[in-house]
């Protein structure tokens, strides 16, 4: 069962401190961990200005999220998905759009340590949460060991599903550093690779678990 299908956590619940970070914790964390990084604020994209006001029921809201260790304050429309915001507003195009309905896994990101389908989560639901996209895994030119393993084993062909495959593998290894082959397959079963690089993907993830 993909975690993206779980019941979304709404702002109200979050503010009551039921799950995840509180707003205060988040801002504290931001202050402590990323001192040098200025808060990046973005508004609605320029093209929206040309259009008339938003359709009925659509609200504009301010959200705060930490993406790849960098804090952002964003003004988003209430119906925008996290995927749209990552790709369009933050230009993090490593997160891919393929089905836009939570059925293929191309848009997988890590949200507070768990994998979610960014196409099936509203941006407002990601308020005050920590998000890791594929761009956050490497350090400059230096790749994460999982990324290196994918390169070495050629665990990719066209590469379109690859960011999501790697993030899913990372989330798995973060909670279970020594998964068996069946656990690896289970964790990656929500991510379609049409090129079917599957045998080599299993090899790549296994090669990292063996080293752990």
């Amino acid at each position, binding site marked *: 069962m993909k975690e993206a299908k779980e019941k979304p956590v709404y702002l109200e619940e979050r503010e009551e401190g039921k799950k995840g970070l509180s707003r205060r914790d988040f801002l504290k964390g931001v202050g402590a961990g990323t001192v040098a990084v200025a808060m990046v604020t973005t508004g609605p994209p320029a093209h929206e200005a040309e259009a008339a006001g938003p359709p009925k029921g659509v609200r504009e809201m301010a959200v705060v999220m930490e993406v790849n260790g960098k804090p952002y304050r964003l003004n988003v429309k209430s119906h925008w998905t996290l995927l749209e915001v990552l790709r369009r507003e933050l230009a993090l195009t490593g997160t891919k759009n393929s089905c836009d309905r939570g059925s293929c896994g191309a848009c997988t990101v890590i949200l507070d340590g768990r994998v979610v389908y960014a196409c099936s989560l509203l941006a407002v639901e990601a308020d005050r949460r920590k998000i890791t996209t594929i761009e956050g895994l490497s350090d400059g030119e230096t790749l994460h060991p999982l990324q290196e393993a994918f390169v070495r084993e050629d665990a990719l062909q*066209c590469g379109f599903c690859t960011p999501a495959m790697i993030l899913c593998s990372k989330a798995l290894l973060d909670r279970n550093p020594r998964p068996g082959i069946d656990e690896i397959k289970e964790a990656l079963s929500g991510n379609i690779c049409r090129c*079917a690089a599957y045998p080599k993907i299993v090899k790549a993830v296994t090669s990292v678990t063996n080293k752990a």
Partner: protein
Amino acid sequence: MSSQFKIIGTRQPRLDAWARVSGRAKYASDISFPGMLHLKVVRSPHPHANVLNIDAQKAAALPGVRLILTHKDMPAYRWHPDMPVLTDVARFVGDDIVCVAATSEEIAAEAVDLIKVEYQVLPFVLDPEAAMKPDAPKLYPKGNLVGGKPQLASRGDVEKGFAEADLVYEGRYKTNLVQHATREPRACVALWEGGKLTVWDSTQYTFAVQEGLAKALRVPISKVRVICEQMGGGFGDRSTAERYNVLAALVARKTQRPARIEFNREENFLAGHHRYPVIFYLKYGVKKDGTLTAIQAKAVADMGGYAHFPGAGGSMEVILSTYRCPNLKAESYSVCTNKPEGGFMRCVGHPQATFPQEVHLDIIAEKLGMDPVEFRLKNYARLEDGDQARKIPFSSNGMEECIKKGAEAASWKVRWQKPGSTAGPVKRGLGMAIHACRHGGMAAGMPSSGMVRVNSDGTVNVFTGTSDIGGGQKGTMAMIAAEEIGVPLESVFVTSADTDVTTDTAGTTGSRQTITGGTGIKLAATDAKNQLLDIAAEELKVDRKEILISEGKVYRRGSSEAIPLEKIAGKAPGPIMGRGVGRVPRNVIFHTQAAHFVEVEVDTRTGAVRVVKLIAVHDVGRAINLLTTEGQIEGGATQGIGFGLAEEQLLDQATGICVNPNFIDYRVATIKDIPEIVPMIVESVDPYGPFGAKGVGEPPYSVPAPAITNAIYNAIGVRFSEIPITNRVILTSLAKAKA
């Protein structure tokens, strides 16, 4: 692996790996510009209808809408024989009727909803055989048969062949409507600046898109630049100029703003290319000893609303050339119906014929009491057979080794038993099939070219038209250039698939790039190397023949004293540019050969078929990169398993509407669905391919479906003549067999 090479035949990570694993790779769907317009298409909800009226007033009044195009804006932009860019006659559900360009995707989508199209609904036909009848609804005034007549082929005397036969067996077979389901949806961005059109497209063939756009928009080819930096899967869906390319370019020109179009998943299923279904009627004659005496075949291909080529003839090639048989008669009917476009998909046309032929022959072998492996070994087309009507040989042929190697790996002689031999509800079965067909060849008029530049520091830039769609084509070109010149692989950089910079190598289609692109690069590398040798000969004052280049160093033969290549390259009077143009050999037929052996488990209680192990043996001529060669075999075979057991785009017969245009209802294999796949390589060393290489991208797709079907028979004793063989099909057939 041959030790005669330093780089060829090794395992090399792909060239774009860093960009792809780091998320920095820019696919066409990732390209964006400020002020860009977004396109959406109004698609027909009817399988066959005349467009009577288009009311776009409300949409035009919507703030943010910049342009609305209909068929009335289009007649001048025709580029396909039948297919208009936007049509006033809908020929399938999803046909392109109106295009909207707006300042955001949301506004464009809203505008699409506001457009009212009035249709005159027409009778439609979904069955290709029904579509051939005189009273069938006509998609085109000229009729539904593509080309107006069947394609015919014959050799020998088929009646004489049947008279000589001890056994004549006939059967009817049918394959499924399948979609590529590439991970990246169709997408492109067009920019029109000062009379120059630049298009970023996810395409397998930038030069075809360039030519198509030049023709459609009536601009010179030199003013159209098409770039495919990355591509999220092709499998044939994007190998020509498509409607969406023309629409984006047209909007960019008319509005003078960048224009972007990206299909959603449903549009991709409805309005992409498809593996067209084919109905095959086969009648084969054999002697008691297993010798084939006559083949009679009729193919009816369902090409949907728009035929990109006569598909039945493409499928028939498999029947014409896989086996040696002196007497043959074949009729191929390509028929238009009100289904989605029949077009190009991995191993175009071949799986639709390999499935029927290999199942048919499995039945015949059984009727003769022959081992199916022995039967294939007796009848497969030999090196000298080639085109059996025109007596042109194959360029190379590793079929015998493929069959023998696979049979040994599968322990066929020991493990292959009578059908239904397993006790208990879960039955095990073994099956096999072979495949041989035209792949990777340089057909007449098919460009093969490349350019190589040696820099003053001895490093190398390769310029190739090939789109690296996932097969690792860029790495292949780098390996060929590095091997040929004698430089380390790390010193080579490849620029690919940009029509302003590179040269045409035909599309990354037809398992072709290693041959067309690779030959071009090898010749270009030789040219550059000769220039280096000339400079070195002058510097060292020896004959050119006395010099060799290896691992980026220049040596005199017999001497271990090494001169760094940069010392020679730096002395060049001008840039060292190597140019290569491949020539088409006319006296041979290019074929690749393959044999698959498969073991299945069939649960007779649930109907579930589990492929346990698939041994895939392919003659690749010579593997350039072992790692990506294996990947092509594993990936192609996995798609082939889906073709046999799971994938089918289903249309409601009453409305022509597709009921499963998504990844939930159209089942694509996940990591949990795949068996143990054992890729095995045979190297026949083709005399025409670069370093002896042949193509491998497509053949792995064709073979699993019939091998699995034969294995299912071996497990449960029931034959199947249609695919996909789903759980339900198995259960229904078992119930029927019992009754």
